[in-house]
């Protein structure tokens, strides 16, 4: 297995800039997820790493070897496609053996390696079947087997779970992660599904409009989103935003919302704000749904009116109307509210963003 380094990668298709000079690194054995909405350049980035696209500018290194000019075949990578791309005229066995035959390995070794991988993925009993006869879950395993069998330097996966149903996806997610761990495989995984990214990644690269928005661990990306885009994209429901202005009231620095409510800032946030010059007045408050609390009058920061109430069982999604803004809260399943009810709300773990640059302040 190798490490991967992408430097200043730039790729355009006609007039569209698909990837605008991005850089990131994947350590050996690391599971990195490229996450973003469709058209954000994540798949183009992956295809450049695979060698299926030639970048216009920038370099790609495996370990310290510059592989940018190499063909896909010479890079020794494995690529799992969204629709698996199993060769329809070959059965599962031959599909898995296909890359080994390209290397010209002797028959006995091919057989040994295929059955080894088949055992690992528990697909020994379907090796004689053509892809047409396989379920999507089986196809996916065969595609993975084909990727693993050649012992590549890097695994590249392009939305491999998007075409299997939700239940199976959950199971496969866990299995895939376990498999990656046990193989210590350097893996770059493309998805638009933030749940997949959060559950599987060691490191998430959030992309939008061909640019990297943030690189960080799932924890960092979730709790300290670099900007409003990341905050909105990660988490379900995404982060809530309320515009406010920085004010000093009775000697305490805080954020005033609509002049009616005042939220004092933490020490850390005050220090971060102080570093800005010119000083920041307009900010946006960001609160995760699970950090909105229903509280009694003495603790409340602001009042909210229940607008929509969606029970999910263990939890309820409640939409509050607060000063014309709609805030989504995740409340425990035993908190039952009526639509139109007025309750006191408090926040914990509030992030503040720059209103103009939309970047995280603290």
């Amino acid at each position, binding site marked *: 297995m190798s490490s991967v380094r992408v430097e200043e990668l730039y790729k355009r298709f006609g007039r569209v800039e698909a990837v605008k000079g991005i850089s990131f690194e994947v350590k050996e054995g690391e599971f990195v997820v490229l996450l973003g909405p469709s058209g954000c350049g994540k798949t183009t980035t992956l295809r450049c790493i*695979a*060698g*299926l696209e030639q970048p216009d500018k920038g370099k790609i290194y495996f370990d310290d070897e510059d592989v940018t000019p190499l*063909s*896909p*075949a010479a890079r*020794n*990578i*494995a*690529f799992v*496609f*969204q*629709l698996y*791309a199993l*060769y*329809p*005229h070959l059965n599962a066995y031959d599909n898995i053996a*296909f*890359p080994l035959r*390209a*290397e010209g390995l002797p028959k006995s070794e091919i057989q040994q390696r295929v059955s080894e991988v088949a055992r690992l993925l528990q697909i020994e009993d379907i090796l004689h079947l053509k892809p047409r006869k396989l379920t999507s879950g089986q196809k996916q395993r065969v595609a993975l087997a*084909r990727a693993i069998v*050649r012992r590549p330097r890097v695994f590249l996966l392009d939305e491999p779970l998007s075409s299997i149903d939700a239940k199976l996806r959950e199971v496969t997610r866990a299995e895939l992660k376990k498999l990656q761990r046990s193989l210590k495989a350097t893996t770059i995984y493309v998805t638009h599904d933030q749940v997949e990214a959060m559950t599987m990644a060691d490191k998430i690269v959030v992309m939008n409009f061909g640019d990297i928005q943030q690189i960080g661990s799932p924890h960092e990306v979730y709790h300290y989103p670099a900007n409003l885009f990341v905050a909105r994209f990660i988490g379900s429901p995404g982060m809530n935003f309320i515009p406010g202005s920085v004010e000093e009231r009775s000697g305490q620095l805080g954020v005033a919302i609509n002049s009616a409510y005042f939220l004092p800032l933490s020490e850390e946030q005050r220090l971060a704000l102080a570093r800005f010059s010119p000083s920041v007045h307009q900010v946006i408050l960001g609160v995760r749904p699970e950090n909105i609390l229903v509280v009694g009058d003495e603790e409340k920061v602001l009042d909210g009116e229940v607008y929509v109430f969606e029970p999910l069982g263990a939890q309820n999604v409640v939409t509050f109307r607060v000063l014309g803004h709609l805030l989504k809260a995740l409340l425990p399943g035993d908190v039952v509210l009526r639509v139109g009810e007025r309750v006191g709300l408090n926040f914990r773990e509030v992030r503040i963003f720059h209103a103009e640059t939309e970047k995280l302040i603290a």
Partner: protein
Amino acid sequence: MNEFQRRALKNRVIVVILVVLLCVYLFPLYWMFSTATKSKVDAFSLPPKWVWRPQGDNFRGIFYVGAGGALGTVRGIELKLKPSAFLRQLGNSIVVSFVSTLLATFLGALSGYVFSRMRVRGKDDLLFVILSSRMLPPVVIAIPLVMMYRSLGLFDTRFGLIIMYTVFNLAFAVWMMRSFVDDIPREYEEAALVDGYSRFQAFFKFVFPEMRVGMVATAIFSLIMTWNEFTFSLLLTGERARTAVPSIAHSLGTAGVNWGHIAAGSFLMVLPVVVFTFLLGGNLIRGFTFGAIKE
């Protein structure tokens, strides 16, 4: 009448209409076959004879000069049969149309692949130019072509005709094959590329077999077009390389029209195409519906 009866009646009406249409389409074929196997007297009898004694004079007549009438001796001299030019012309037809169809389909498949997969500068314009070769009636370019063919020594050669037909079918083949390749998911070749194969290997190992249906459909169309082509064969050939179609028309000679010969010749001309299409017909229908239904 309830809903089910109405639907049943509707189906029956549709079947009747289809049968009538089928008869209309098949009637010329029937007429051709009957004329070819009737004697001259039977062929012209009025009202037409629906039952007749089939005879092969007309077929013999187109293969042998002087075999049109009764065989035997004329004034004590045995009539020697001389092979006619028809056999050679039929051979020309077969060689020219099959070779040009093969070439056009193969080259069309290759360039269709390129047009579908690679970024070619001015791709759309190129495709339009290719198609535009089919936009004017062939007769328009006939005179310059004849002059060119004469000065290049291609006039009245099978090779010349093969070039002509290949080029003509190629426009169609490129467009057909491009849309077929468009429907083959790119991921398959890309998987092969990643798996360690070269672009050529990926093409021949994977894409080519997947293109089979498209190539068969293209080949059938090309073959029918070439096989039945009249104008160029008439204009670009003399005695040696002429194909069968214009030579059948040629028997509308000065000595009146020998309908029996024309019918027999036409029948022989239709036969190979019918057989070929029947053999590959399944592919043709799949070819038509290719891409219309997602798997």
